[in-house]
């Protein structure tokens, strides 16, 4: 049996979490679950260096911490993808607080900070945001840029837990 790992996609409302999810996975479950119970779960097999891993991805609706998302949705996750919208600074203004919250729930979890909607901002803006947030990836769910790389990177880090924790 192939190794399965839970990956949670979180971030503020409208940052493109579901678009990233859809871009990576040809989804089976209807999106209405997101508005009813605030989460949608799907799976994708990823092959890295000849090894296969099953990423069970939880797409959380809306906010990161607060009262809106049950804490239990985060539990047992091996990796967190924190998504923010490069075109809306408000979505990364609380980045440090949000990451701190995640780390209190999951102290040793692998975190990837992802600035999404790369196609909507200039290179200069990207540079400024990079200095401010030090993201691991700039992605565009619309064009698909870096989406596959992001998940492959996570899969690789999960297969060799000693690498890429920060």
């Amino acid at each position, binding site marked *: 049996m192939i190794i399965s790992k*839970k990956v949670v996609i979180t971030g503020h409302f409208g940052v493109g979490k579901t678009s990233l999810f859809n871009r990576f996975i040809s989804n089976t479950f209807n999106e209405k679950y997101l508005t009813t*119970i605030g*989460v949608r779960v799907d799976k994708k097999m990823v092959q890295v260096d000849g090894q296969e891993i099953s990423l069970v991805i939880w797409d959380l609706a809306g906010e990161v911490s607060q009262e809106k998302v049950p804490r239990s949705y985060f539990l047992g996750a091996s990796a967190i993808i924190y998504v923010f919208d490069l075109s809306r600074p408000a979505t990364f203004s609380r980045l440090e607080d949000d990451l701190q919250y995640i780390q209190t729930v999951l102290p040793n979890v692998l975190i990837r900070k992802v600035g999404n909607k790369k196609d909507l901002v200039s290179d200069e803006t990207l540079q400024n945001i990079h200095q401010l947030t030090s993201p691991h990836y700039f992605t565009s769910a619309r064009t698909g840029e870096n989406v596959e790389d992001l998940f492959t990177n996570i899969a690789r880090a999960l297969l060799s837990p000693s690498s890429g924790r920060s």
Partner: protein
Amino acid sequence: MGNNSTPTKDKILLEQLREALLREDRAALAELRHILNTRKELEERVNPIIKEHLLELEQSFPDAYLDVVQKIVDRRMHQKQNELINILYPRLGMMVRKYVNSEVRLWMERLQANIRRTSRTVFWSKRRRAEEIILENSKSIVEEAYIVSHESGLLLGSASSAETVDKDMIAGMLTAIKAFVEDAFKRTDEELQGIRYGGYEIMIQNFFNYYIALAIAGSISEQERDELAGKILQFAASELNHDLQEPDPVFYAKMNTQLEAYFIKPYKNKPQ
């Protein structure tokens, strides 16, 4: 010549002297050898000493070694906490279930006795027949069985009688729904124990760090539900009595086979 005969004579005399002096020692040595080489003789002499020491150890053990033993037990229990809980959880469940069942049975018996006293025999015989017909016609079947990690929602084992949507996704969504319900109605420490929709039911039995879910098609009687609950506890007690933090592929394969044997096969062969 005289010079040659003297040492020989001395030697003989010395030998005779040694023989005279060591005769008793040699006899004692021979006896000692006999004791050592004869098990019975040796036991007769050594056993009382061993018994005496054992008795002494038995009496002084609690004082002398209590702390050491306590430390070893504590350390072992701490290391194997999850394993212990996984062993105890289903067994406690079985004990509680047994107690509740016997209490309910007693209550039912008293109730039925009271009702019988006040009702006509004909009515009851017809009703019993009607119940039998309903039970005969009710077709319930366990279609799917899952073992899922409480926290991550990751699948630990599964078996099904037919092809379904991806099992990892089902396990994930089921865990999300469970977490949502338990979180939204957190008035008590209760856990979600089942979901009913139309002619289907998902029966959930919670354990310490995993839960078992059975997807049942068709109507299920209380007696059948009770039997299945017992079977789940039995399964957990015998198959899942160790740490489930890092299950390996061998574990997954074994769980799939065992789930099939416990829950799917008996229903496949069940006369309808």
